[in-house]
């Protein structure tokens, strides 16, 4: 651990959640601990409020959550769902805020609140859903940098959960991690032998989380109110903001009781509202079907039957819903494990991951206590997506050239990995080759994302069908390297994967913005 003036740099893991975020640090013996925020809470709501009365202050956390009833237009919630979306912008006081910048405000709040006494949060690992693509991962890293953090890595949320479980409880065998958070759902299957962990596969849905269950309750509330009083329950954004929280309360109550009761206040008067757990469970059945599908798809990919899963670990606050446990019991024949706090295990695991990353990259920066505490943990991750390139082979049926995406590195390949495929030039005298690196599982080019495009110059006066060797490799830091070689001439193009698409900032832009962020007052 390096000494920076009177402050000591501390390694941390951050769970940047859709509804709540938290920060954990590694203590002197390499054990993760949650650091409460300035309000003394272990979880910080991922809510932002731009206070018009104190324009110099941006409120993040519980106060922002409460303030949004007063002025929803100046508040932001669930920004994680917009991460990486270049078209999303929040316009306030003549300034536009991107999802990266808004996420950076949440991270800054966590960092500032936890950098107290002689501690300074600097080297961090931030967790992301396993199914997040490269754009969203890079956006999350950029948000950390803007917040003044040194993001040493990104960890998949289920992996962080497994890391914490495996270092806390004895875990052996094929483990399924069921992570139903505020905004996203992930399922990961791992092979665990104590602290030796191999990821087998992950599946996820970025539009399936606690807030979708809340919205179902809100729908029921609205139609109940309309049936009862013949009027709309929600007429303004303020009313919506308040009722969204009430719906969440109803959901939480239904996790403890069979019936939740609430008084609904609307413009046409108030009415008593009761929601039975059974009715709620029927209403959310399509959402649960989505989860069931993802569980089955993950099991198929892992070539496992439910009976071959030894343990199901829960993560994410929404996994507390009784319907979750009931469905898991039905599918696997045993109860899921709830040995640790499902709200905190991701940030605690992310802190362990941060320690492991630094042991690998910069062991001198760590104390012997931390190294000793983490040295026995071994983790083999997988490629989160398939990566390929666009090519134009001749279709055997029609004899015509068809443009298609050809996968080179397949999703769920253990890291580090490398794969090579040979392609051929299409035209006589071709002097240039457009190279696209794609991410996605489809053959049809319109359904995959071209994450970067380059040109490879070729020698003139050559016939068609000259071989081009394409090699993709993916390292343990989840960085991709692409190597394109014209076999005959030896001409080479190397692409170290760096995102520069719109919505992902370039390094100098990040550094410039980070300086401005330092001056922002986030409370």
């Amino acid at each position, binding site marked *: 651990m390096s000494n920076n003036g009177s402050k000591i740099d501390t390694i941390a893991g951050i769970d940047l959640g859709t509804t709540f975020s938290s920060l954990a640090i590694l203590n002197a013996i390499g054990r993760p601990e949650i650091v409460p925020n300035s309000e003394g809470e272990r979880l910080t709501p991922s809510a932002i409020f731009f206070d018009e009365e104190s324009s110099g202050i941006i409120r993040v956390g519980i106060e922002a959550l409460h303030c949004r009833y007063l002025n929803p237009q100046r508040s932001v919630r669930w920004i994680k769902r917009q991460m990486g979306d270049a*078209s999303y912008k929040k316009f306030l006081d003549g300034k536009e805020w991107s999802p990266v910048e808004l996420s950076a405000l949440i991270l800054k709040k966590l960092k500032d609140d936890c950098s107290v006494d002689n501690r300074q949060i600097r080297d961090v690992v931030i967790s992301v859903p396993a199914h997040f693509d490269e*754009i969203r991962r890079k956006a999350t890293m950029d948000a950390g940098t803007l917040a003044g953090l040194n993001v040493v890595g990104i960890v998949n949320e289920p992996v962080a959960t497994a890391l914490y479980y495996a270092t806390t409880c004895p875990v052996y065998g094929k483990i399924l991690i069921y992570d139903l958070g505020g905004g996203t759902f992930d399922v990961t299957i791992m092979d665990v032998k104590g602290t030796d962990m191999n990821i087998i596969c992950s599946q996820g849905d*970025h539009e399936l989380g606690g807030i979708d269950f809340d919205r179902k309750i809100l729908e029921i509330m609205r139609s109940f109110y309309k049936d009862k009083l013949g009027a709309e329950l929600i007429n303004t954004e303020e009313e919506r903001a308040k009722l969204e929280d009430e719906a969440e309360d109803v959901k939480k109550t239904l996790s403890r009781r069979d019936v939740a009761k609430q008084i609904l206040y609307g413009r046409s008067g108030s009415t008593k509202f009761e929601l039975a757990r059974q009715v709620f469970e029927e209403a959310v059945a*399509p959402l649960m*079907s989505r989860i069931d*599908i993802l569980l089955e798809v993950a099991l198929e990919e892992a070539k496992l039957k439910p009976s071959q899963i030894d343990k199901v670990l829960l993560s994410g606050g929404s996994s507390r819903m009784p319907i979750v446990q009931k469905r898991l019991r039905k599918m696997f024949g045993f109860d899921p494990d709830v040995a640790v706090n499902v709200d905190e295990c991701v940030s605690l695991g992310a802190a362990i991951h941060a320690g492991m990353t630094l042991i690998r990259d910069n062991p001198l920066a760590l104390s012997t206590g931390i190294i000793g505490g983490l040295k026995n943990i071994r983790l083999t991750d997988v490629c989160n997506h398939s990566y390929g390139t666009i090519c134009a082979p001749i279709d055997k049926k029609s004899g015509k050239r068809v443009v298609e995406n050809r996968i080179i590195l397949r999703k769920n390949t253990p890291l580090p990995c490398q794969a090579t495929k040979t392609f051929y030039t299409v035209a006589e005298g071709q002097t240039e080759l457009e190279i696209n690196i794609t991410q996605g599982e489809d053959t049809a080019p319109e359904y995959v994302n071209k994450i970067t495009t380059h040109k490879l110059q070729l020698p003139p006066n050559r016939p068609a069908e000259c071989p081009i060797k394409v090699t993709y490799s993916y390292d343990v830091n989840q960085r991709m390297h692409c190597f394109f070689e014209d076999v005959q001439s030896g001409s080479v193009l190397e692409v170290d994967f760096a995102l520069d698409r719109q919505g992902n900032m370039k390094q100098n832009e990040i550094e410039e913005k980070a300086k401005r962020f330092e001056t922002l007052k986030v409370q």
Partner: protein
Amino acid sequence: MYFEKIRSRFLQKFRLGSFTQPFVPSSALDSSVELKEEKGQTPLLAIKIRGSIHSSVDLPRTSVQITAADITDGTENPLPVRGSSKQWQLPDSLRFCFVTELGTLPASITTLADWTTIAQIDPLWLQLPRSGKRTLQFSISISGFDNPVEVASSDCVFIYDSPSPGFIDLHENIERSKILTVTLAFTVSGADGSLSGCEIEMIKKWARRNIDPVDDSDKAKKQIERALNKTISLLRSGNTVNAEKVCLEIAKIASPALRSDTLEFCLQLARSGGTVSRTKLSLLKNIAGWLEVDKNIVITLVQKILTPDICEVQDEQFFLGVRPDMDSEETRLLLNEQYKKWSSRVTNFDPQIRRQAAGMLRFIAQTRNLLVK
């Protein structure tokens, strides 16, 4: 429909000039063709010659070139016979040409007293202009390999019953199926009882782009416009089209690619209205079946063009391929496959694809909730 009455008069495009017999005075060569059909073997056309060949010089290597023409309509109006691949074509032409070596010819008269087979041609090497019984004229020409002077030639006629459609048939079929596609499109457009202006424009645009006028003249182009307008007015005045009959004709004459193009256009047309009614969706589903488009292609096209949220009814069979005879387990596996496919598309850079993927995931989950126990 009036529009269907248009008949392409492109046949003359294919006509060859009338034949003139080559004059090779000293040789007297006869030729004939025999169809050899042996059990379990590919049928072959055996080309035979007999008679005398007169060469004034020693020819250490000679070659024989066989070409063919279709003279079913008389030698005054011959139609070409094409080679099915470059190997069986004249240089820079599609016309059939078979060349083989014949050996040495001395500087004298060589007489072949008996019929001698000089080539065996697989009928699949030939592309005839039309199917059915065709009168083919084979032209045999013998010349030196290094000295291309012709030393003998002969023509013979053979009637061949071709089972496969000829290239003129195919061209006509393509043109005919395009016309039928337009008719079908009007049926889709009018499925809800009226023809909308934007859909009519879309059909007209498609017709202008895809239907070849008889020639490049304004008159020919106007003829298409007149046919389109006449069809519109007939439909508006209450006439109806039997969509099934139209589809069955397309299915009979069009290639699979053309049939899926027809379905694609009908789907695009249906989508252009913003919402797809129950009646229209049912018609589209029937069209896909009548056109005999491959089921996987139907699903790909439907998913690409329509989204469940714009349809009045959300049809699991049409959108996802869930058949009524599938049991719960088969349905579950199929839906999992579909979910996997769409799940990887929800992070697409294109917002329209993202929206479509989100809608499909919701629809798949709803379907599972309904059908999988």
